[in-house]
Every structure is written in C-alpha cells, then in structure tokens.
C-alpha cells in the first residue's frame, strides 16, 4: 500500500475537519475535489507530516508520518497554491540547490547538480535569473523542479493552478503528466483531473464519492448544482 490513511480524525481551530477517514491510495494519479473547507488541504498536509492526526495513523510509502516525520520531505514533495510563498531564494539556481544542500550536499556539488538539472529541463537560462523576473507559470514550474530535484516518490499539490493563466496551466499539466511519481492533487480545476486514475470527493471531512473521475465528477457537479440552486 503506497498511502494508507487509517481511522484518521483531525481537528483544527476547534473544528473537526476530518472524521475517522479511511483511505488506501495505490493509484498513480489521484485527485481530490470538494468545496472550500471540505478537508482537502488538511488531508494533503497529513501526507507529508505538516499536520499529524489527532487519532489514527497515516503511512506514506512505508513511512509512518508520526514516527518518521524527519524522513518525509525526502519522499514527499509538496507544491503549494502560491509559488510566491514557497520560493525562498532570489535566483532559480539557488532555489534548486537549497533542497540538495538540505539533503547533505556541499555548496559546490549542490550548485553543480542544480545547474545540470535546470539544463536538463530546458531551463538553463533561468540559472542566474532573478526569480522576480519569472512569470507566475515559470515560478510554479520552478517550484516543481525544486521538488523533483530531490527525487520524491510522491508529489502532493494543493491548488497548483490558482495563479496560472490557461497557457501556463496547460504547460504545467503536461509536465505533471510526464512525471513517473505518484501524484495526489487537490484542485477546483475539475477538467485538469479528468484523466486521473482516481478521484476522491471530500465533503465536510468525510468521503462523499470515490472512484473514476467520470463518475465522481458527475456526482460532485450534480451536488454543487443542487446546492447552488435558489
């Protein structure tokens, strides 16, 4: 089992956001849908130990998130909604090298690997460029490269398209499709998850739907339409 969520309950700010959740996730591309506050972001944060469950257990690629929290960033890469919030360094080269140095490479080796990595991903001209000069799409691209350079087994994405225009969104989707890693992504961009292997619909911290994107999206859309009706 690659990801196992067993009887997980989680409360945040005095409110229970996940109720005795049970999920086994083996598929390569898994999408999470649900209205705001449904528990999607909380579930994603459980997968890399940013949050720990109040009850229950989460195991990701053989690592218990509670017992092996320090090892998780090596196995789980996390892409946040706003790239501006996660880019730490002023140049792309340093941003890529930072993750490598956190994993023990010295400055020279980390910079060399980062330069080579950017070149292999056709971004050699970004090396010395200021991050401030990159477009939003390029910044999000840089964020995923910063994650990929650390070779995680799982990539978790929380609303990665919200700041992207259509062109950047499509390019980012193509990049995601080419990755061999397991992906778990929460998004309101339902079309982006049409071709995923599995879709999970969360509603008020519980699984309201789980299955193929076609079936889950139909049910989710119908539910939202009914809720929005006057």
């Amino acid at each position, binding site marked *: 089992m690659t990801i196992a969520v067993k009887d997980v309950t989680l409360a945040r700010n005095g409110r229970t956001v996940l109720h005795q959740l049970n999920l086994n996730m083996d598929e390569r591309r898994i999408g999470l849908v649900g209205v705001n506050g449904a528990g999607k972001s909380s579930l994603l944060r459980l997968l890399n130990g940013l949050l720990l469950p109040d009850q229950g257990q989460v195991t990701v690629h053989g690592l218990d998130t509670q017992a092996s929290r320090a090892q998780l960033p090596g196995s789980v890469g996390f892409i946040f909604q706003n790239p501006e919030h996660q880019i730490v360094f*002023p140049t792309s080269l340093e941003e890529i090298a930072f993750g490598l140095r956190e994993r023990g490479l010295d400055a020279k080796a980390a910079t060399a690997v980062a330069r080579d990595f950017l070149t292999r991903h056709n971004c050699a001209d970004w090396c010395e460029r200021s991050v401030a000069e990159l477009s939003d799409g390029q910044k999000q691209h840089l964020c995923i490269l910063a994650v990929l350079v650390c070779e995680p087994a799982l990539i978790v994405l929380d609303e990665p398209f919200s700041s992207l225009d259509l062109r950047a969104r499509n390019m980012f989707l193509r990049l995601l499709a080419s990755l061999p890693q397991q992906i778990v992504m929460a998004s309101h961009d339902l079309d982006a998850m049409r071709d995923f292997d599995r879709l999970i619909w969360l509603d008020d911290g519980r699984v309201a739907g789980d299955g193929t994107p076609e079936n889950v999206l139909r049910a989710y859309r119908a539910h939202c339409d009914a809720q929005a009706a006057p």
Partner: protein
Amino acid sequence: MIAPHVAQQTWLHRIGAGTKLLALAVVSILLGWMSEWVPLLIAFVVILGVYIVTIPSAGTRLKLYRPLLPLLVGIGLLQIYASGWEIALATLLRLVAMMALADLVTATTPMLDMMDALQPVFRLLRPLGLDERRLSLAVALMLRFIPVIMSEWGKREEAWRARTGRRPPLRLLAPFLSDVLRLADHASEALTARGFDMARSDRVDRGTR
C-alpha cells in the same frame, strides 16, 4: 534589498561573499567615523560612481528606492531642527552611501554564498542558544521577501485608491500586517515541507492540540 538580484556577472560577482561583507563592515565603520559633510560627500560620490559603473540599469534600480524618500526627508528635517543643516547633510550622505554599498553587496552575491559567509559570524551567538543556520536563513528570507511584501502593500494601496480615489490611510497597516504574518506562516510551512530543520523542528501541528 528592495531590488532583485543582478543576474549579469560583474567584477563584484567574482569576489567572495565573506570579503564583500567584511569590506562593507569596514567602509561602514569608516563612514560612521566621518563627521564632516565634505569628506562624506566625496565618499558618497565615489560609492555612487562604483554603483553606477557596476550595476546594469542602475538608474532604474535606484528608482525602486523611492519609497524610502519620505523617511530620508523626515530624518533630514529632524536633524536640521536638532543639529543644523551641516549635520543633517552629513547624516543623509552617510545613510544613502551605506544603503548603496549594502545594495551593491546583496545585488552581486548569491544568497547561498551569503548564508555560508554569515554562518561563522552567527556561530558566535551559539552560547545564547541561537542556531547559526536558522539565523542565516532568516537573513536570506528577509532579503527575498522585501520585494514580495512591498508588492503586497502596492496591491492594497491600489485597491484602496480604486475604491476611494484617496491616498491610503494608516489604518490600512493593520490588515497589511495581518497579510504579512500570513505570508510568514506560508513561507515557514513551505520550508518545513522541504525538510528545513525537520529533525529539530518543534513546529508539529496537531490541529488545535
């Protein structure tokens, strides 16, 4: 550092971060010792000359420092009132020269190099329980997020002007500071997700527990 890092390689890029920081400290001390406005003016002209020759599009870059003008004017007026125009001029020349020097260093030094150069200095603070890695990263984060924070303020200012047609009032600072704190929280979460100090981190969230 309000303006971004300069990508184009200059002669200053080739000098080590430690050497540049040391030079910055020495020149700043020398500027601090000077009390007459005439030698300070000469030093200011020399530093500005180096700045213009070294930094590509120096004029455009200097324009980014415009938000600091009201502060400098305030300091100048206060000094004229308290000590006369000569002291005021000397103070302003010293301040601007130091700022230009600091910008020269940050614009031409990769942040990772800067962190490496600062760590031995911060190591002296270990007896106080401070961690040199965290401190040097804090410096990097501060430099990186100044333009982001200024852009956030710009958006708030624009939204206020769009709705009222007036300059933003001071009370806009409260929601702005709240935004900045939220930004700090996001950045901290992103660093944790990338494994920074994970083993030693005490920032384990368990919902509300």
